[in-house]
Every structure is written in structure tokens, then in C-alpha cells.
């Protein structure tokens, strides 16, 4: 069963009591929330995700709720809970679904140590994975969205590259693509068929909106991909589209610098990244035009 087959009343009932147990890639999350914007966000963005049995195993038990304080009556806030703990301070009350997404990123990046996890977007084409490691604000998600919605690439993740040390492959974690500020309208124009949720204003990151993961990414979520490219993206207003070679050693360090749990894996982490880099071409990429970027990555995929 997928989420959209539940119907809105049953979805809301599960979220209010007991939880919706949903699978995304290798992760099963039990989600509870009484908040309508969280219900709407899940109905929209997770419509095609698999619903797991209520008595099955869940990796994470999370809840997005109002904090237990008087502010819930004056200026409502939302709080993210994981196993009953509150790892973050409350945020403004209109950010429920965004808080859920950020909280799930935190859950995976701080707990799924069976994978070497890099802060990176990952896409696949022809069985080969493109890893885009970069800090927030670099244009990583915008480029990822353009390639996923208009470039013929399969989305594995817009935020977390889960690298299996045993195989060197990247495991898919297809979830909504998070876009910020100018990228929201830019992507709406570039990919008018993409499904967007409501824009949330005045977050710590500015305006935030999520786009539903393309269907192909969900249908093939069980198919990992072997990395072939490591590309460091950078959006620069007015910059020409430019793909420049990057030395493998610097590509390696980019993975280390953007890794969440490299320190946890020790020598195995070093060997995993080294093996990955052995197989990959490394580049730096600067851009301001999405159509040009998509064309360039199309050529890159065809030339290899």
C-alpha cells in the first residue's frame, strides 16, 4: 500500500494516533503529528511512498507537535521529537512539514552509521551515480532538482548520499527536494510539471518549499548505483556554465569535508572514499543557467 491509497481521513487518523509507518529507501519512519500542515505535506510529498505495517519495525519514531508551553495558545510553535526527546528548539508554528523533513535528515545523518553519509545530492543515469557534495547554499539542491525534473536523471537524494561501505554503491533515499528562496520560482519556471508544496516564509533559511520526488526515483528506490562522478557545484549569479577538472585528491577531501560520519568509520571510511574516488571523475562546476547545466550534464553522461 502507498500513502495516497490511505485517503485523507485514514492518513490523519494514523498520524494523530499510533503513527504512519512509511518507508523511504532503506529507512522506515513512524510519524505522528496532530498538525494539519504536516498531514497535508505528507499527503502531497509522500503520496507514492510505501506504507509499512503498523506492527512492523521502524528505524525512527518521530513526532511533530506543539511544545508543551503557554505559547501554544499565544504564538504557536512546532517541535520535533525523536523517541520522545526534543533535540532542537521549537520553531515557528507554520514550519511543521519543514521541521519534519529537517528532523528526518537529522535522524538519518546521526544514526544510520551502516552507511558512510555525505552531505550531497545524488542522481543516477545509466546505472552510474553522480555525487554533488556541497554545503548548504551552494546551489546543490537547485541543480539536483533541475537534473531530476528536467534532465533525465533519477533522484537518489537531494541531501544525503548513503554510501554502502561493503559495495561502494549509493543507496537511494528518495524524499522531497528542499528548495530555498530564489530557487523556488526558478524551479517552478524550469519544471512546471513538478509538484510543489506551500512556501514557508521566515524560516532560518529564508523561504522554503519542497518539491515532490519524481516518481521514477520512488519506483526504483531499491536500486543502488555505483558512483562515476564527484562534482562540486556552485551557483554564481551571472556565472558562465563551467565544468573544470578537479584532482582526485581534492575530490576525496571534498567527500571528507562534507561527510557526517567519516570519523565513525575510521580506516574503513578512508578506504571506502578512496575506492569511490578511484572509480570517479572529479570536477568543479559553476553555473547560473539551469538549461545550460542540464545540457552539460547530459553530455557528461553520454560521453562516459
Amino acid at each position: 500500500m502507498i500513502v495516497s491509497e490511505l485517503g485523507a481521513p485514514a492518513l490523519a487518523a494514523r498520524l494523530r494516533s499510533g503513527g504512519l509507518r512509511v518507508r523511504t529507501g532503506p529507512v522506515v519512519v513512524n510519524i505522528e503529528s496532530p498538525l494539519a500542515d504536516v498531514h497535508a505535506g505528507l499527503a502531497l510529498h509522500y503520496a507514492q511512498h510505501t506504507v509499512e505495517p503498523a506492527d512492523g519495525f521502524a528505524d525512527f519514531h518521530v513526532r511533530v507537535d506543539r511544545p508543551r508551553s503557554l505559547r501554544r495558545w499565544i504564538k504557536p510553535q512546532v517541535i520535533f521529537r525523536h523517541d520522545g526527546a526534543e533535540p532542537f528548539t521549537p520553531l515557528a508554528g507554520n514550519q511543521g512539514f519543514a521541521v519534519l523533513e529537517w528532523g528526518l535528515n537529522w535522524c538519518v545523518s546521526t544514526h544510520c552509521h551502516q552507511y558512510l553519509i555525505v552531505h550531497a545530492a545524488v542522481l543516477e543515469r545509466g546505472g552510474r551515480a553522480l555525487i554533488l557534495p556541497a554545503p548548504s547554499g551552494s546551489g546543490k539542491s537547485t541543480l539536483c532538482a533541475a537534473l531530476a525534473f528536467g534532465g533525465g536523471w533519477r533522484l537518489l537524494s537531494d541531501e544525503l548520499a548513503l554510501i554502502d561501505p561493503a559495495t561502494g554503491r549509493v543507496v537511494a533515499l528518495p524524499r522531497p527536494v528542499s528548495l530555498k528562496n530564489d530557487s523556488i520560482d526558478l524551479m517552478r519556471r524550469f519544471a512546471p510539471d513538478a509538484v510543489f508544496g506551500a512556501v514557508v516564509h521566515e524560516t532560518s533559511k529564508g523561504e522554503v518549499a519542497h518539491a515532490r520526488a519524481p516518481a521514477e526515483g520512488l519506483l526504483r528506490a531499491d536500486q543502488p548505483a555505483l558512483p562515476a562522478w564527484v562534482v562540486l557545484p556552485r551557483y554564481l549569479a551571472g556565472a558562465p556554465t563551467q565544468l573544470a577538472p578537479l584532482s582526485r585528491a581534492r575530490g576525496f577531501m571534498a567527500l571528507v569535508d562534507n561527510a557526517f560520519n567519516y570519523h565513525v568509520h575510521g580506516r574503513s571510511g578512508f578506504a571506502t572514499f578512496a575506492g569511490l574516488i578511484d572509480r570517479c571523475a572529479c570536477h568543479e562546476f559553476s553555473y547560473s543557467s539551469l538549461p545550460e547545466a542540464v545540457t552539460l550534464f547530459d553530455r557528461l553522461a553520454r560521453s562516459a
Partner: protein
Amino acid sequence: MAQVHHVLTQRDVSVELGRWSLQGSIDWREWDGEFVVRCDASAATYLLSTLAGETLKALRDGPAHVEDIGARVFGDSAKPSPATAALIASFADVQSDTQGLLGVLKELEGLGLVRASLT
């Protein structure tokens, strides 16, 4: 962007007299004359220049005085790789003046990758 470690430091007569050796377990890889190394003791990973990486690699053959390290790094140039040939061209003075190599060794020591001993 990751910092390349290769800094010249001031003269230190005491370490010139000592022998240098690798410190603990080090993982490394070399691509096109650039090195990445991981020090198991500190769990830190570094990007090294060609000279720093070749210096470290020379110590795999065992502890050595700085002159011997220089000979290992620059001496066997019968069939140098392109990266090594460029290194030799760039650091031609190092063979006669060990200060450059000592500077590299001191920085590698600071990173916990090598150590000097007066033996």
C-alpha cells in the same frame, strides 16, 4: 577547499641531528602526485603536496636522517614519474640545502604523522 600542508619553518638544529620515522599507523593514497593520508592515532585526514607526500612515502623504508630522506625522495631519479620529475625541478636546491625538507618534516610532525628521535 582543503588546505595543502607544505609550510617551511625556521631552522631547528636539534631535529637536523635526529632520525625521522613514521608515527603510528597511516593510511594513504596517491593520485597524480597529490596525497591524502589518514593518521589513525588522531583520526585526522590531510591533503599533502607532492613533496610532503613523497617525504612521507620515503619513510616507509624505515627511519632516516634528513639527508637520507632527501636521497630517497630525490636520489632515485633514473625513471621519475611526471610528478616526481616536476618535484625535482621545483626543489632542485633541496638536495644541497635540507631546510626545505626539514620544514616539511616539521609540519608532518605537527600533524602527528612523523616523529624525530636523537638516535
